[in-house]
């Protein structure tokens, strides 16, 4: 009799444990890391990367197509060299354009890839020639104020 009670509760306990693990796998988490999928790396040089960080997403048309694998500084050209690990399901034309963007005003910084029109595709180790640096908000505000001030003196 006692044995049956133990068996029931221990079985119940184990089942509840497995259910909660299944809950965490199915409802709470997802495989959103690109490490499992095959990828190829391409390089992009930027004059300023703003707040870009390692593992930041690479998006094209708003869809995740890769991640930032490495960020280095080129001391000869004084530029940032960003290594992008692109999902090997996606290929982009050779003259594609990479720019550093921000989702929303204060959101995460990511690399946006705009496809070009070339027939040749970017292969592993290639460098994206056309890049656009991050927009630094302070500089933008500074320029805006400066031009406003200049306008004001013109009118007087």
């Amino acid at each position, binding site marked *: 009799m006692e044995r049956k009670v133990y068996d029931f*509760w221990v079985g119940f306990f184990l089942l509840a444990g497995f259910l909660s693990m299944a809950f965490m796998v199915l409802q709470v988490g997802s495989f959103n890391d690109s490490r499992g999928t095959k990828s190829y790396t391409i390089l992009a040089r930027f004059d300023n990367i703003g707040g870009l960080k390692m593992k930041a997403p690479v998006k094209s048309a708003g869809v995740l197509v890769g991640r930032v694998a490495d960020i280095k500084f080129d001391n000869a050209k004084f530029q940032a060299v960003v290594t992008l690990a692109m999902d090997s399901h996606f290929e982009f034309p050779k003259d594609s354009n990479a720019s550093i963007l921000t989702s929303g005003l204060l959101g995460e910084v990511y690399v946006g890839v705009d496809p070009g029109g070339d027939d040749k595709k970017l292969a592993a180790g290639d460098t994206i020639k056309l890049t656009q640096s991050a927009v630094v908000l302070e500089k933008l505000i500074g320029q805006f104020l400066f031009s406003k001030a200049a306008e004001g003196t013109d009118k007087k």
Partner: protein
Amino acid sequence: MKHSLIEAVRRVGHRTIDTIWRAGAIAHFFFLVITQSAMSFRRIRLIIREIYFSGVMSLVIIMVSGLFVGMVLGLQGYETLQKYGAEEQMGVLAALSLVRELGPVVSALLFASRAGSAITAEIGLMKATEQLKAMDMMAVDPIARVVAPRFWAGVISMPILAALFSTAGIFGGYIVTVMLVGIDSGVFWGNMQAAVDIRYDVLNGVIKSAVFGVAIAAIATFEGYDAEPTAEGVSAATTRTVVTSALTILALDLVLTAIMLRQVA
């Protein structure tokens, strides 16, 4: 003067030898438990009985604590996140802090004080009343019959309890943010799924809780087996189990977190 100096040196030596002896005794004990485990797995009933006492009996305290911790996380998180207009991230906050840290650590602390102390007291009392010696006389190895089933029950129960704690906590967070605050439930789950990675968050949490389970079970059984066979000795051993387990859990958590976060970055 000279005498007290010699006495001081002697005390340092005694402490050192004692500590080393104790470390050796723990290692020897752990080795014995592992080698004697085959027998207790053949008699799976013993382990089932112990899972009932340490795992099933801890269910209520674990689930209720998890629910409360999740609800507090929801309230506190909302308070801060709404300043930045980021209330939608509530689900992420609750899930990540529970799955990565609070689930394994808090449930391990609760498990050490709820089940670890009971294991130590039980084995210690068996030693004090010479039941262990009696078993030895009957050619029943007390490590295989008494210690190993309790050890494995602790190791098996701990990850399950941690998973239940996290699940209860996430539901607590859901109750506060979706039902009280009024965040859309689709946004709650959607943001959570986008931010929580199964391998780097969920699996690492499970690994942590399994390591804590081994640590607690080893400490609790050793302290009981090593207890002085008196009423005072058993009470001191029970206290030592809770204190040592808590410190070990937190120290291990720091080490494991450092290793796991480096792996991500």
